[in-house]
């Protein structure tokens, strides 16, 4: 394959943004609800949009908005944010091998823009067999699409404000669930993956009562462990394709 066969950076960027559109649909209600909750909880408009601009973490922003409304100390809110966002550490660690050749100019912004949604989209592109040197542009396209949408949704929620107080009650928060189902189910093609999902699901249910989403991390690690154990038991036959190694070169 010659250099010219690869998609151009521009094409990669557009593809990344385009492939993220379904996930944006799922994120819109959250941005709107966040904006409405924050404004109604007594957070200033500047801080409401500021959080979306500088923190850019949906569930952490939700929880922070709730905690601020209850008068919880800022330090505790920061600590909660850290715990809620710990899962991003796993995301970043699993993307890192694909991004090892990128400069800081790429790593810092792409790190800042890392979300559940962008991770789910770009991890598939990075794993694609072609060794296109422009996959980071795909990542950038996905990131910017999510970021732009998050700002717009937040503003819509702020403007709509009090009228939308009951928005969470009409069930738009379910959008996250269907979005994640749409991502996870097609990945359950090997037995270890299936076992990983089952163990993660059961553990998450059993630990759901724990504070600060601690159960989420416990369940995630239990699932990962179960997947590896299953993979080892089954031998090399039934494992997800090894993709990390080839990409390094």
């Amino acid at each position, binding site marked *: 394959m010659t250099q010219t066969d690869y998609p151009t950076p521009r094409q990669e960027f557009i593809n990344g943004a385009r492939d993220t559109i379904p996930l944006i649909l799922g994120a819109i209600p959250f941005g709107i609800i966040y904006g409405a909750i924050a404004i109604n909880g007594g957070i200033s408009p500047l*801080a409401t949009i500021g959080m979306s601009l500088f*923190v850019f973490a949906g569930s952490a922003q939700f929880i922070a908005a709730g905690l601020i409304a209850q008068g919880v100390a*800022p330090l505790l809110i920061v600590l909660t944010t*850290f715990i809620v966002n710990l899962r991003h550490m796993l*995301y970043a660690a699993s993307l890192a091998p694909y991004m090892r050749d990128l400069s800081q100019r790429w790593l810092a912004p792409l790190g800042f823009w890392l979300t559940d949604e962008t991770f789910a989209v770009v991890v598939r592109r990075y794993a694609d067999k072609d060794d296109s040197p422009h996959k980071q542009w795909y990542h950038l396209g996905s990131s910017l699409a999510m970021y732009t949408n998050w700002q717009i949704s937040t503003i819509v929620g702020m403007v709509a404000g009090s009228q939308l107080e009951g928005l969470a009650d009409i069930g738009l928060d379910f959008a996250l669930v269907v979005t994640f189902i*749409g991502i*996870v189910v097609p990945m359950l093609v090997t037995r*270890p993956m299936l076992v990983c999902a089952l163990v993660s699901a059961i553990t998450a249910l059993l630990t759901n009562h724990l504070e600060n989403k601690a159960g989420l991390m416990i369940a995630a690690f239990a699932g990962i462990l179960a997947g590896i154990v299953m993979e080892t038991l089954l031998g090399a036959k039934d494992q997800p394709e090894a993709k990390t190694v080839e990409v390094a070169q």
Partner: protein
Amino acid sequence: MNEALLILGMFAVTFSVRYVPLVVVGRAQLPPRVARALRYVPVAVLTAILVPAALMPTGELDISLSNAALIGSVAAALIAWKTRSLLLTIVLGMVIFLVWRGLVAPALI
């Protein structure tokens, strides 16, 4: 001003967890065992988020026909399995959830 400090703090911790592993893990040569483990991250984490939301929408385990989140999730999973289309899964899953919650679940009580 307090709000600005809070946002700064939230930015600092959030950016750290997203950025530091990119640099540290990217520099290091990952042991194959760890690299293998990382492939399970998306399924493990996303499942741990979505399953309690579907089965415990009010905080208590609710496996019944009146739990619209459960019905919507099962439907969405079947759609995702059959079509492999994220967009269809989201749109149809939401429609089924909203219809069930608005029309079917109230009729069951």
